[in-house]
């Protein structure tokens, strides 16, 4: 009998390596053997190189640019300045945030490192010599790096091009250095609640400027083929399709004649969402010279000039009853955007999803206002491993909870528990208008507290405090708590677009005659492991082993249109498209199977990798058989082939959440902190690949550790970047990275086809609060309420000093 040999459903399921399998990353064989193909690996015939002359000063008029010495240098082919780009209308370009940005300095410079001229030459060496020979005369202007000073009456005017413009892309402007005011929620209602509240905590929380600093910096190779009029650009693009559309709009090259390719990308973290002057200059230079042009920035360029993250001054007020029931939340944020508003947010959200700042709590009324301000700093404001300002929002509320707990004299774990949105309240509409899809915060919180033995930790902490007070130790122990709710998977086209492009995503599947497949998506992996996980989604949907499915992304000539990878949107949006396309394949496969088995469609049921006739398990057709049949059978009413495409417009965001706890020991004399424990519980809904989730959590926690404990982009008052190399810009090595304990609960998203919510960014969002809260918690007994990050040695030392802990 046939069915004796047939493996069981379970066996066949596990052979697929589908959902829930810790399948090894298929990308790693290539990366670990140095066989990746990054932008800088691309070498084309006749290719020239380009690099920038950058401004050494933060604010100045440009009196003169003399390119003659550079042009006279053998090996230098061209030097572009704003004057050369102006006739093409490319000396400025639109930003993703509705502002415009200089491609090359047009009469003035506004930040240190700004692109002034683009030198093109035979190789990097000739170009570097050429760059050194371009003479620029600067007439220095006064500099403002403090967003509060920028809005003062006598502040230097930065953007003279729009000084008199009273209306910006997001409403009225009240000062030449003011960009926008964005409001959300109920102002009057919130003020009223605050006025009448029993307890109000009021605090300024600063989330400092930092930088995503991917291992691979930004770059591109632009190649204009003058014979066929086709422009091909290989680049470090997190959103290749959007780049193609934008490139077409600003260059007037028809979109079908532009091909954007994102090859392997060595980390993005939001840094590679923006459109940079280097891309525009490389394209123009390729058009001018008729040969391919490569531009790849170095580490110092990357830190100094490409998109930073955060830099939010968040003033908050939170009110509660005496017994700790939160009644209202108010927040005013001053957002330092640097010289141009080049934030990468959905168009209608100039402060991203900052209005998720009510966090995991059931807060009846809230109000948020954000003022964007220009300063003499680099532009950017990208979502560094987070979904559009959700880290800022989450850090804000998690600090406010701590400050409120202090005021109430209440344990902050208990305060959180008392105010969490309850399981039965989902779907929950927040005071600032989001519909949280699902969650079980209490379950996660209780699990976390139990896992770390919270009560015992507090006892240990008290003992350590006694040792400190009695002079037996100079160390304090801090317990950092954090519960976060993310908002990812942007997003529903009804309210999410970038430059008018709806933020759906897509997947196209083609099943080959022998039953293997290729799937192409509108996203692009930068290390997340899409080729591994999306194949797993499909394996479970269509019954073809993950190892028989090729995943391709990043080539706009072949992949379906999508908005790219950032903001944890790949799984919630493109992952959903993948599942939906898989279901279309299955629907057609069912018709084919019915024809082959000579039964009605409805007489079949799906069983892992095959359609089986109901009640007759010996009669079935495997997906492999169906695939072949689709190529060789003339089935009446059914087109040949087995392909599907799905464009998925998500009905809602997804809301991953989690509970993180960090235990830290701090030496009050040296300011050195030692991480004793990091526990991270994530609820990202359905878990596609637990091993990849764990890897993502480790990576995100390490970035969170960096940000909270030392990583920053610092400027002095003259606008000089003080953290321009990896000596001063903190990127943890294995030595600084602690051990992580990961855990999970699983509350599937009710609206996502497979219930997945996204996880790549959660650990950065939740981690920063856990680390920072641990520092604050250590000094709580001595009256610390708020100390700004990063908590590097000297700043921690300063906390201790200001609290009188040094003698």
């Amino acid at each position: 009998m046939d069915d004796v040999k047939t493996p069981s459903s379970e066996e066949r399921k596990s052979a697929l390596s589908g959902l829930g399998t810790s399948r090894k990353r298929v990308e790693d064989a290539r990366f670990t053997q140095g066989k990746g193909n990054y932008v800088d690996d691309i070498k084309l015939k006749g290719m020239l190189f380009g690099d920038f002359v950058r401004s050494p000063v933060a604010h100045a008029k440009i009196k003169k640019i003399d390119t003659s010495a550079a042009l006279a240098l053998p090996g230098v082919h061209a030097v572009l300045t704003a004057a050369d780009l102006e006739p093409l209308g490319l000396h400025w370009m639109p930003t993703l945030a509705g502002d415009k940005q200089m491609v090359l300095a047009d009469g003035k410079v506004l930040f240190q490192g700004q692109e002034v001229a683009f030198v093109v030459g035979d190789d990097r060496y000739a170009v570097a010599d050429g760059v050194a020979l371009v003479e620029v005369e600067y007439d220095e202007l006064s500099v403002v790096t403090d967003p509060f000073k920028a809005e003062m009456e006598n502040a230097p005017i930065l953007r003279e091009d729009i000084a008199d413009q009273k209306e910006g892309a997001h409403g009225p402007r009240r000062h030449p250095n003011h960009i926008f005011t964005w409001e959300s929620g109920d102002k009057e209602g919130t003020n009223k609640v605050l006025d009448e509240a029993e307890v109000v905590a009021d605090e300024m929380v600063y989330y400092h400027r930092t930088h995503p600093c991917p291992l691979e910096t930004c770059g591109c190779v632009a190649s204009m083929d003058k014979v066929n009029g086709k422009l091909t650009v290989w680049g470090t693009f997190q959103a290749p399709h959007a780049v193609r559309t934008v490139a077409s709009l600003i260059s007037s090259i028809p979109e079908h004649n532009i091909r954007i390719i994102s090859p392997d990308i060595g980390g993005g973290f939001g840094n590679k969402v923006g459109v940079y002057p280097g891309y525009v200059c490389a394209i123009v230079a390729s058009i001018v010279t008729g040969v391919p042009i490569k531009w790849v920035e170095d580490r110092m360029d990357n830190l100094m000039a490409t998109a930073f993250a955060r830099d939010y001054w968040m003033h908050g007020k939170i009110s509660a009853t005496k017994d700790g029931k939160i009644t209202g939340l108010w927040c005013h944020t001053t957002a330092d955007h640097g010289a141009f508003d080049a934030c990468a947010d959905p168009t209608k959200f100039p402060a991203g999803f900052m209005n998720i700042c009510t966090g995991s709590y059931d807060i009846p009324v809230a109000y948020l206002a954000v003022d964007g301000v220009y300063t003499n700093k680099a532009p950017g404001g990208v979502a560094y491993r987070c979904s559009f300002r959700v880290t800022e929002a989450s850090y804000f509320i998690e600090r406010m909870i701590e400050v409120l707990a202090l005021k109430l004299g209440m344990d902050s774990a208990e305060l959180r528990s008392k105010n969490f949105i309850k399981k039965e309240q989902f779907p929950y509409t927040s005071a600032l208008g989001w519909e949280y899809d699902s969650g079980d915060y209490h379950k996660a919180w209780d699990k976390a507290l139990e896992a770390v033995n919270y009560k015992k930790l507090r006892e240990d902490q008290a003992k350590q405090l006694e040792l400190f007070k009695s002079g037996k130790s100079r160390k304090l122990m801090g317990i950092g708590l954090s519960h976060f709710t993310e908002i990812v998977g942007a997003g529903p086209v009804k309210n999410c677009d970038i430059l008018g492009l709806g933020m759906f995503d897509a997947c196209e599947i083609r099943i080959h005659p022998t039953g293997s497949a290729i799937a192409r998506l509108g996203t692009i992996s930068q290390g997340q492991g899409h080729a591994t996980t999306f194949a797993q989604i499909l394996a479970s949907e269509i019954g073809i082993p993950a190892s028989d499915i090729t995943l391709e992304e990043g080539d706009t000539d072949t992949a379906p249109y999508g908005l790219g990878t950032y903001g944890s949107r790949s799984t919630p949006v493109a992952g959903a498209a993948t599942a939906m396309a898989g279901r279309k394949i299955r629907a057609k496969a069912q018709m084919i199977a019915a024809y082959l088995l000579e039964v009605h469609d409805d007489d079949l049921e799906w069983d892992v990798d095959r359609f089986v006739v109901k009640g007759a398990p010996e009669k079935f057709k495997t997906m492999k058989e169906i695939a072949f049949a689709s190529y060789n059978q003339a089935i009446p009413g059914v087109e040949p082939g087995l392909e599907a495409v799905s464009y998925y417009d998500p009905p809602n965001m997804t809301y991953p959440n989690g509970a993180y706890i960090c235990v830290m020991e701090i030496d009050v004399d040296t300011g050195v902190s030692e991480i004793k424990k990091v526990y991270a519980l994530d609820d990202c809904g359905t878990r596609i690949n637990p091993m990849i989730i764990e890897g993502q959590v480790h990576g995100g926690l390490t970035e969170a550790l960096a940000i909270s404990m030392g990583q920053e982009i610092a400027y002095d008052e003259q606008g000089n970047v003080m953290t321009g190399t990896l000596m001063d810009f903190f990127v943890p090595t294995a030595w600084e990275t602690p051990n992580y304990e990961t855990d999970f609960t699983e509350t599937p998203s009710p609206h996502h086809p497979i219930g997945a919510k996204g996880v790549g960014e959660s650990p950065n969002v939740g981690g920063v609060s856990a680390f920072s809260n641990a520092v604050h918690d250590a000094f709580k007994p001595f009256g610390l309420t708020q100390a700004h990050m990063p908590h590097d040695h000297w700043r921690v030392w300063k906390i201790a000093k200001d609290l009188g802990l040094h003698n």
Partner: protein
Amino acid sequence: MIPSAFSFYKPDNLQKAINLIADFGDEGRVIAGGHSLIPVMKQRLTDIKHLIDLSAINELKGIKIKGSSISIGAMTTQVELITNAELFKVAPVIREASLQIADPQVRNLGTIGGNVANGDPANDMPGLMQLLDATYTINGKNGVREIKAREFYEGAYFTAREDDEILVSISFNSPIGGYAYEKQKRKIGDYATAAAGVILSVDNGVCSSASIALTNLSDTPIYCSDAVSMLIGKQIDDSLLSEVTKSCVEQSDPVADQRGPVEFKKYVAGIVVNKALNRAFDRS
């Protein structure tokens, strides 16, 4: 980050190197491990026309130990200083200090000669050489001369070595007593926020000889002579050690940078000196 063009020479003996550097004058520069020089060349903070690589000169390599006298060739790498078992026996403080320099990749190439010749106040070895009261042997077109490490450093990147001289070797006597090199830094691969080395011999609780030196707390390494005289001949106890620490801190003159303001660095100077004193005392 591309340096300006230079020509490259790799002489295979010391005399050839001396001749080359004499010919080129201040347009020439020797390169050892390159881990201080190449970064400044890449940032075009220095313009060098002729680069003379010392790595093929065997006379400049190796560790020689004769009884209590130790001589280390300038081109000896930091990793050799760490792994040489004989050296550890006679001067264990060198391993303790070297392990706190940068990271393994840097130490595989970085040399003791480059480290002390560079004149960077952030480097650890100049401080270590103050501690050991080392003597530098220097050779140039005008012949060989010796100079004490404690007289070598004049200011940041300014030393008593002339541009056309090459550091050949470093010699010192095996230190006696307890030792410690204590360094606070922000992360692996970082220079010191503050660092201190101590050597201490104690007879019946009384200090018989001592040396103390500081790193990255002034524009040159510091030998703490006042503090040393406070120690010698005295009964060692906590209050003496804290007086000694105070004296060291007074001698420091750090500058503010991303590691922190002056006040913080002075405070940490006190901490590292005190820790080094105590550890050296425990080991004495």
